[in-house]
């Protein structure tokens, strides 16, 4: 992110935001509701057009990547499914559009432990199942990086535990993870580094240890209150 900025009407959602997400680590993206986290991630993914600065992946804009889903997998809000389509149809259509082999559908369904529900309509899925399906969609292209917006929402404790292990392993594999959350305690256990934003601006950036380790919550509250 390079001096990134975006306004919606009179609200400056993201303002002169710059930070870098290194590979091999889980980077947590923290901030209160409305801090500009989702807007930032959507600008990174080419869904929202920045009005200042730029967001680059491997030095390129998302839209300029030749095979974007094989570079970055994205887990955005978990409701973005057609209720009448099955999980398999959703994944298969994505595979076809991205020109990926159809065998990836079953592989990612297995990865997120959703194979038994593959042929059910998404309309009957729980929030946790939708999150898993969103993660499966993001993994289709076997990407080098994952961008996740509040992926733990709606997951039960077992699911949260599973997701933490998955993201840790993904990063240990040398890949990149950027995960936004307002679940501090959870993020303190998952992330290596954190980037804290408030009112669209960068407030702090550093390793979890630097920012207080287990006391991340205190540091965070101080930071956010200090910039209010």
């Amino acid at each position, binding site marked *: 992110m390079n001096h990134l900025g975006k306004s919606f009407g009179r609200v400056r959602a993201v303002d002169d935001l710059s930070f870098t997400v290194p590979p091999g680590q889980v980077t947590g993206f923290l901030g209160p509701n409305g801090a500009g986290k*989702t*807007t930032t991630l*959507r600008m990174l*993914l*080419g*869904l*929202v*057009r920045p009005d200042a600065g730029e967001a680059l992946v491997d030095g390129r804009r*998302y*839209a300029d*990547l030749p095979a*974007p*889903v094989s570079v970055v997998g*994205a887990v*955005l*809000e978990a*409701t*973005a*499914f*057609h*209720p*009448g*389509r*099955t999980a398999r*149809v*959703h994944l*298969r*259509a*994505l*595979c*076809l*559009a*991205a020109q990926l082999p159809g065998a990836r559908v079953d592989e990612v369904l297995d990865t997120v432990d959703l194979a038994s529900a593959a042929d059910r309509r998404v309309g009957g899925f729980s929030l946790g199942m939708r999150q898993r399906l969103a993660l499966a*969609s993001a993994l289709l292209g076997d990407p080098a990086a994952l961008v996740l917006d509040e992926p733990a929402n709606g997951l039960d404790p077992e699911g949260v535990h599973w997701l933490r292990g998955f993201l840790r392993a993904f990063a240990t594999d040398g890949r990149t993870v950027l995960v936004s959350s307002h679940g501090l305690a959870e993020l303190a256990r998952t992330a290596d580094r954190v980037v804290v934003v408030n009112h669209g601006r960068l407030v702090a950036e550093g390793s979890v240890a630097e920012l207080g380790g287990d006391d991340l919550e205190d540091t965070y509250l101080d930071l956010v209150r200090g910039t209010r």
Partner: protein
Amino acid sequence: MIYAELVKARATRSVWWLGAIAALSCVAWAVVDVQLWLGDRPDDHAIESAYSMAQQGYLFTMIVGVLLVAGEYRHQTITWAFLVSPRRSRVVVAKLAICGIVGLIVGLAAAVVTAGTTAVLLAAGGHPVFTAGVPLALLGSVASTALWTVFGGALGALVRNQTAAVVVAFVWFFYAEWFLVMLVPAVGRWTPTGAAKAVSGWTRDATPVAGNLLPMWAGGLVFLTYAAVAAVLAGMTSTRRDVT
């Protein structure tokens, strides 16, 4: 990409429900036409008109197109499409192609059931069942139905909001266009409905535009131009907007 869109369309039940309603409404129109409007001694033209009722489900098939495109915005699945293909114009073109294919399927189904019903009713009434112009009337109806679906898709891409797109279509086709044609009959052949009716070789005197239509090919061109203008406008405006 087109195949991917086809997989999605095939799995969307509302599309096929509406398609079935479109086909059934054609059958209903055919029954009305043969029983009430045909007269005792129908000429060839009247026989062909009965068959061209196969295009009368057009408002439903247009809504099929709206659903296929605007439905993606409604369910936010457009996000996935744009993530896979950040070049959004390609997504829109693929979607309009799918609208054409789905429209063709619905049009063919409507033509088959309408032709069957019409033939049976004509035979029962002691009228000639076939004339040389019947195949063209049916082909024109199928083409018209496919074009209507593409038109609906372009409208959906432009308006993005499914309900708003249907309301816009409703206001235009049930009110604005009728008033316009009644006030200025000369424009009737150039309106979307007039152009689409020309494609199907429609002649039945149920609209103010009847008897004054463009040739079949010209109607097709005019109607495609409407769809293309809507699609290009969509590409310049709606599809560029932020997806939030």
